[in-house]
């Protein structure tokens, strides 16, 4: 592997890993804020338990997102210095704004939320989780503005060989960003919905299995309690899980609708803005109107400059045109039409310039790796759709107040937590790899070679060696691997502990005293590391 390939693997691994934590943070944060609000308004204890339990899992996950987010920011300068020089004037701004306007709020107010349960008046304490979770969403907006500018550069001119911002409004209201933002946020809520659903299902099933809950002749739940476990398995505990489950399922279904609608708008834009990406998503060599359900043949085209070996086995006629144009007739350009167009506009060979390293003067492959784009696109849609169907089914199956007595369904519910995560990863891999061979894709509404765009081959740091890059790739990947295991082990333990893992006071059999225990010491920590 050369420096460029190692740097790309590192970027991909870091991004996909980081984006396992991010959607859960975004989706769960706001959900917990709503739970606490309902508790604040109604005073019903099961809402407090939900806030604390889901809040605990939220924090275990949040910290991993923080830790890997720093790598995201640093690696532009470390591994992609030429890219940073070229784009810094435009791309740096949303990144700096994210830190200053969003991440500061998120971190500070989460600290206040975690430690402030007894120190802040309840209203103010409630406000802190709202500030933190809304800041997470604002943070997503800034990052997506930066990413969308790479997909579709606007508000920029090429001056003295670098991209210079000329219209901030255009950059921050880039239509690519405006459709990507809801798509990503709905995707994040789909993750949170599935998470709530799967874990709550598990607990409801265990309550039935252990004989705590049962069903009557009509299939309606008969809630019981297990006094041996303190108040953790009391009647309110059932309410915690059934409420969480149904909230999760509704979030999952609604989010999928949002993901699908915003995704459709996004696809229409992408056909205009990055036609090659969408042709590669379809593995469509020739112009056509059908959406491929299954395509066989040699889809693997790494480094290829033509595309002929692919046969669509089963197509839905007209659907592709609908996705792209909103009608069923207008043909969509295939790879073989697009390659000559790209070559004519942007050249058939990389410039013979040392900035391109070993790629200087080589022929440019405008075709992304079609195996990845084709299957990534389909995996995203399939996993997203499956989890929405599962959530809708779960709503129906739990209409009588508990889950069916089935070990397999319970296992499936836990497994299905992974589906929206997979859909998110597949979507990102598709859109980032589909942009290749560019880091900054050219905006087709502008001219040819004299406009703002950048090849990936020219983006990497010129004098960082393959050895250094390999060292960091291996180190970071190992660290991510170890920490993923640690996080999963911890999450599993806290999930199995139920609400008692976030509220140890529930493990005592005594009823809660009216007196606030923190009064004794004047100021005992309500929460301590």
């Amino acid at each position, binding site marked *: 592997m050369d420096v460029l390939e190692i740097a790309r693997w590192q970027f991909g691994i870091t991004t996909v890993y980081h984006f396992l934590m991010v959607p859960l943070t975004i989706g769960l944060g706001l959900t917990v804020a709503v739970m606490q609000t309902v508790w604040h308004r109604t005073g019903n204890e099961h809402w407090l338990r939900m806030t604390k339990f889901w809040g605990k899992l939220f924090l275990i996950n949040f910290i991993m997102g923080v830790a890997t987010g720093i790598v995201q920011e640093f690696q532009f300068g470390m591994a992609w210095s030429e890219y940073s020089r070229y784009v810094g004037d435009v791309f740096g701004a949303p*990144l700096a704004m994210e830190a200053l306007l969003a991440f500061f709020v998120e971190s500070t107010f989460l600290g206040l939320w975690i430690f402030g349960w007894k120190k802040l008046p309840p209203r103010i304490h409630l406000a802190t989780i709202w500030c933190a979770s809304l800041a997470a969403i604002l943070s997503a907006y800034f990052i997506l503005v930066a990413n969308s500018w790479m997909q579709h550069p606007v508000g920029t001119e090429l001056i003295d060989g670098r991209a210079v911002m000329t219209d901030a409004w255009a950059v921050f209201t880039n239509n690519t960003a405006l459709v990507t933002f809801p798509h990503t946020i709905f995707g994040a809520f789909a993750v949170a919905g599935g998470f709530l659903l799967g874990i709550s299902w598990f607990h409801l099933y265990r309550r039935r299995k252990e004989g705590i809950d049962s069903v009557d002749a009509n299939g309606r739940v008969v809630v019981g309690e297990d006094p041996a476990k303190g108040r953790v398995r009391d009647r309110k505990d059932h309410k915690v899980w059934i409420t969480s489950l149904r909230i999760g399922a509704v979030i999952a279904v609604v989010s999928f609708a949002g993901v699908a609608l915003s995704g459709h708008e996004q696809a229409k834009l992408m056909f205009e803005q990055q036609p090659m990406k969408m042709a590669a998503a379809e593995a469509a060599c020739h112009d056509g109107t059908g959406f491929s359900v299954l395509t066989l043949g040699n889809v693997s085209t790494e480094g290829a400059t033509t595309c002929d070996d692919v046969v669509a086995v089963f197509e839905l006629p007209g659907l592709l045109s609908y996705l792209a144009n909103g009608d069923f007739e207008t043909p969509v350009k295939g790879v073989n039409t697009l390659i000559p167009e790209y070559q004519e506009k942007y050249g058939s060979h990389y410039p013979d310039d040392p900035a391109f390293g070993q790629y200087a003067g080589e022929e440019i492959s405008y075709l992304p790796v079609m195996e990845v784009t084709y299957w990534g696109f389909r995996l995203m849609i399939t996993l997203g759709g499956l989890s929405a169907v599962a959530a809708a089914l779960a709503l129906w199956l739990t209409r009588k107040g508990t889950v069916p007595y089935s070990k397999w369904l319970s296992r499936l519910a836990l497994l299905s937590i992974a589906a929206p995560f997979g859909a998110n990863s597949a979507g990102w891999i598709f859109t980032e790899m589909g942009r290749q061979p560019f880091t900054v894709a050219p905006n087709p509404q502008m001219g040819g070679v004299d406009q703002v765009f950048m090849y990936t081959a020219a983006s990497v740091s010129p004098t960082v060696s393959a050895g250094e890059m390999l060292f960091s790739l291996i180190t970071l990947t190992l660290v991510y691997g170890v920490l993923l295991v640690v996080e999963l082990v911890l999450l599993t333990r806290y999930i199995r502990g139920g609400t008692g893992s976030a509220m140890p006071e529930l493990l005592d059999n005594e009823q809660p005293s009216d007196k606030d225990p923190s009064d004794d010491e004047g100021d005992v920590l309500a929460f301590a590391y």
Partner: protein
Amino acid sequence: MDWLPTLWFILIAVLWTGYLFLEGFDLGIGMQIGLGRGGEKHKRVLLNTIGPVWDGNEVWLLTAAGATFAAFPYWYASLFSALYLPLTLVLVALIFRAVAIEYRGKAESRRTRGLWDLALGWGSLVAAFGVGAMLALTTLGLPLNENGDRVGGPFAWLTWSAILGGVAVVAFSWIHSIAFLRLKTDGPIRARSGRLFVRWLPLCIAPLLLWSLVVLLGQRSAIAWGLLGLALIAVCGAWMSARSGHEARSFIALGITLLAAVAAIFVAAFPVVLPSTLDAAFDLTIDNASSSPYTLKLMSIVAAFGVPLVLAYQSWSYWVFRKRISEKHIPEDHLVTSVVK
């Protein structure tokens, strides 16, 4: 609009100073927990003094890096790519440190907890050293060619300057965290910190002042020398007020020492942001490394609104958690037990 790059130079210097001041005691406390002695309750007192605020403090680093990217992309690109290996280690250190703070209390056995403590200690130490080395190198120079790229291989950064800067930030963070504990704890830790502070302050502050002095050598800037003088006076003040038991006064004086010493360094370096040790013609300066006036103007408006806001709510969070902590405040651990059979 000529003053915009200067403004951003000042702002980035402020962000780095803010980072060193705030995360300084977090890093020092991390080192004390991970590498020092003391029982479990003792460690938990230490950790809880920074518990609610450490993550917000770390954002100063992200903001400093992000602001450098936005305002001086050439500075950001050259510095970060030249320091590829040490920054990789800093990243790993920061990852382990963050995760250790959150997860150490969740460990089930003493052995795993011990491992997290090591991660916290070494993570803090390596992060402090790496950031110090980076700041020293950006003020004292790296072998850069005309494109701003490092020459001389992966270890070209490993110089006496880097080591001096690294040691300076490690030592400062440690002593700063001792001063912080005197304000934030009660009981034996407070008393012990008072003794440690008086004994170790001169040695711990010396590398920072030396770094400042090295940057200033050959400089005629009266302001820079004046600031260094102020740093010296402040550190003497910190030592004397600590001896007479004035905890807040010595903490503030130490803070002024940091402020003045780092300000002296940046004033002396101005307008160069990253000198090339190969040829002064390859130096990165506020003019040839900066973004366009348009971007700087946009970012200035954002900063004018954002920075005061950050200062306001971060100060508020310190106010909310102003109470001293001692071992009697630390609740018993509770181990999470599975409720499902």
